[in-house]
């Protein structure tokens, strides 16, 4: 019934997987998921086919996860942040400076720590299958660049509707302002907020570069995108099919990373043309500032154990 419907009519015996996500059709995520779908169709000889619902037409991330729980959708891609309200263990990804480097991040994501977090939601009807790199998040601001935490003092920074994100901005000295994504552009333009935080593609896909002066590479969080699959679908797959899903997820991740890095570079170039100045940042004082936040998280036994395992992978 939707963008991939030409593949959906391969016969009555095929299992049709409904995959919904909220990116537009030009986004690298859509390309990666489309490639994921066609590879699986190919390797299962058409016994599993996909219908892809892009653009959030079935709902926002939370709504799609609920539809997966209910069974009307089988797979999705959501930010790990959206999974926080379903399972606290996912909130670890929103904790600033939990990863010390890109390699550390990848090592964790490919370890069984990530697998354990993925499976923390099996009881409520879905699990993480794999991840896509979604880039490091940094601050971008209108009036001054962020070089030290002091520069955030008194600035109203838009955050996602997440307790961890609010606490992070406040720990760093800024004033957290939760706003919906669609409001960011006008809020920056009109000075309702002084900045926001995301990866550089926000400057171009959301046109925020038009109303932003500085992008400071604080790289405070690395919140992955998670590919989620319903338990109902997962358990209905044969072992062989499960293996195909895992292999193809891995392959498409690699394809995606390549596309994504290219998209990031392009976004930076394009944003420079829009008049955004980029600056590197000494992260030490920032890391120092968020230590109390880490300690706060360690109070939870489960989270503390996960954090220790993450630290061991440094």
């Amino acid at each position, binding site marked *: 019934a939707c963008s991939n419907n030409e593949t959906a009519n391969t016969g009555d015996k095929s299992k049709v997987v409904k995959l919904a996500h909220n990116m537009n059709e030009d986004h690298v995520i859509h390309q990666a998921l489309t490639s994921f779908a066609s590879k699986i169709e190919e390797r299962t000889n058409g016994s599993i086919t996909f219908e892809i619902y892009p653009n959030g*037409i079935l*709902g*926002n991330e939370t*709504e799609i996860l609920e539809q997966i729980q209910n069974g009307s959708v089988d797979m999705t891609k959501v930010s790990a942040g959206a999974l926080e309200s379903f399972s606290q263990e996912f909130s670890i990804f929103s904790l600033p400076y939990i990863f010390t480097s890109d390699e550390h991040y990848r090592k964790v994501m490919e370890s069984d720590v990530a697998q354990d977090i993925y499976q923390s939601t099996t009881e409520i009807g879905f699990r993480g299958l794999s991840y896509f790199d979604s880039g490091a998040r940094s601050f971008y601001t209108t009036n001054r660049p962020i070089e030290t935490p002091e520069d955030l003092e008194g600035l109203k920074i838009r955050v996602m509707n997440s307790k961890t994100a609010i606490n992070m901005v406040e720990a760093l000295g800024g004033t957290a302002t939760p706003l919906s994504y669609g409001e960011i552009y*006008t809020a920056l*333009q*009109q000075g309702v907020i002084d900045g926001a935080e995301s990866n550089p593609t926000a400057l171009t896909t959301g046109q925020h570069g038009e109303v932003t002066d500085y992008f400071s590479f604080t790289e405070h969080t690395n919140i992955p995108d998670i590919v989620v699959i319903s338990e109902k679908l997962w358990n209905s797959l044969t072992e062989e099919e499960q293996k195909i899903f895992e292999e193809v997820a891995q392959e498409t991740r690699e394809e995606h990373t390549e596309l994504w890095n290219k998209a990031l570079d392009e976004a930076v170039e394009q944003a420079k043309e829009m008049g955004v100045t980029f600056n590197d940042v000494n992260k030490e004082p920032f890391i120092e500032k968020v230590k109390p936040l880490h300690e706060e998280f360690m109070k939870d036994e489960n989270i503390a154990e996960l954090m220790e395992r993450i630290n061991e992978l440094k």
Partner: protein
Amino acid sequence: MDATLLATIVLFGTFFLLLILGVPISVGVGVSSILAGLTLVPLEMITFTAAQKLFGGINSFTLLAIIFFMLSGSIMNNGGIAIRLINLAKLFVGRLPGSLAHTNVVGNMLFGSISGSAVASAAAIGSVMNPLQKKEKYDPAFSAAVNIASSPAGLLIPPTTAFIVYSLVSGGTSISALFMAGYLPGILMGLSIMIVAYFIARKEKYPIAEKVNFKQGLAVVLDALPSLSLIVVVIGGIVAGIFTATEAAAVAVVYSMILAAIYREIKLNHIPKILKETIVMTGVVLFLVGTSSIMSWVMAYAGIPQYMTDFLMSISDNPIIILLLMNVILLIIGTFMDITPAILIFTPIFLPIVTNIGIDPVHFGVILVFNLCIGITTPPVGSALFVGSSVANVPIERIIKPLFLLYIPLVITLFLVTYFEWISLFIPRLLGLL
């Protein structure tokens, strides 16, 4: 049969059937969506998703603005604001032939602008103006028609809940831009009616109001000033980025309470009535918003918007023809459907088509609302028509004839607004909102 076609037939077939049988629109939307959904997914999925979408459809900070504008509108209706704005309108246009008709139009533009409701405006302005016009020997059917035809101007002139609803269903079109885009079309709507009224008044030799001296004029302006400054506070606050549309609406509530206190027209025992009015209106409108979001989910799931796009594009890919077709369809829809449900149901279908042919979503929002504004003045179902007829105490059958004459300027203005996008987009562009 093609699954999309089947879902489309079930959806609209049962919807119109239930509508004709007198089922509330919100329930008709909900039930037909469930039935259409059943052609695609099992019952337990559709019932859950229905509840989820009902919740998600209402759970929006933006919609809060609608409650607030309704509350402030209700306070104003009870707060002695209409008569002050009528006096001001008379000061502006009183020297034209048929001055009371023009006063009625400008009064609707001013009061509708503030209260954001065509029905409230038709009632508040009409109930003052119609008796005055009768005293001066105006044809009561003519004065009722002028009141009815001009009452929706305030739905285009901001602030207006119609654009808030549109902003929401269109996926976040800027409310500030929509508000600014509504000014010229709304003013043109009023002016076009005044032009026709001018010629009729000259033919019928309707009287001209007496000249007022400077001192009297100043007193009228000063008396109306607190009401008018509400517009400055609300619209100025949104455009300057001091507050969001929702917060502006909350400010409007507080401001209108202060006004009512200054004018001393609201008594303590009016308050429960005002609250009740607001709660009922909110319940009716937002429930409709909620059930419509299940309908748009079903339409998306079944691929109906894409289907409609392909269908319309197969007729023509010429923007002029497509816009013409859409205006005709929307005018027909408007004859029987109220503004809010029509925006909720048809935006998801039409917006992809118009963006496909390069129409700005803000411009389309204005076209859509303008069409539906005409719709609420037409039989068989027109809220402004009903209210305007009842406050004038003239049966609808008698109003129809003069009203038809007034549809001509309305439709001409509609087509100007449709085909000259700068009428809508000039002000938002000037202010850098686009």
